[in-house]
């Protein structure tokens, strides 16, 4: 059975600093990989996804993620965090775009 692990429950970062959120997965094949963001009172919004090709994926809002098959990881990064990036971030995997398994999420707090 597939599983997704986000080791960090909560991360605090200073505005302007870099951010990296970790995601590891267990899956039978190369899965579709996703990062979603959820702001308070909002639905989940897709930041980026990977299913094939270049292992470094660019997303919206200046985020990128790198797929590393050997480490079963799909870590999310942003070079310089803005206060509006404070939110909860979910990594997800699936066989396709629709039926996904989600990690428990990482809450990001941005301090001035």
């Amino acid at each position: 059975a597939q599983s997704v692990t986000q080791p960090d429950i909560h991360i605090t970062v200073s505005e302007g600093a870099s951010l990296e959120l970790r995601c590891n997965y267990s899956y039978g094949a190369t899965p579709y990989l996703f990062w979603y963001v959820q702001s308070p009172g909002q639905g989940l919004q897709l930041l980026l996804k990977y299913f094939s090709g270049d292992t470094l994926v660019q997303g919206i809002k200046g985020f990128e993620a790198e797929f590393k098959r050997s480490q079963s990881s799909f870590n999310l990064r942003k070079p310089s965090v803005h206060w509006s990036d404070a939110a909860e971030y979910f990594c997800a995997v699936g066989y396709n775009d629709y039926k996904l398994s989600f990690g428990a999420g990482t809450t990001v707090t941005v301090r001035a």
Partner: protein
Amino acid sequence: SAVISQKPSRDICQRGTSLTIQCQVDSQVTMMFWYRQQPGQSLTLIATANQGSEATYESGFVIDKFPISRPNLTFSTLTVSNMSPEDSSIYLCSVEDPYSYDEKLFFGSGTQLSVL
């Protein structure tokens, strides 16, 4: 991209009662999904609701507890039946939009349910 309206946004309910959550989409979609997000835990898929057929439930979820209706291509409801405090969660409706260029799965803003 699909725009989803989910109602109610939050509710506080008594043990033993039932709550029906509505999900309305601004376009016709084939597949709709219901997720549960328990406090401090990941989103878990409850069921897939296709118009014109019975909902397909994931392991650990049953129709008697979470009956789902899908009367047309833009609307679905999820009922949480005979509620207990363990049902306190955020319930999310999502839909697939296969014609969207990149983002295929869209989520509503969720229903935060508290059971006393």
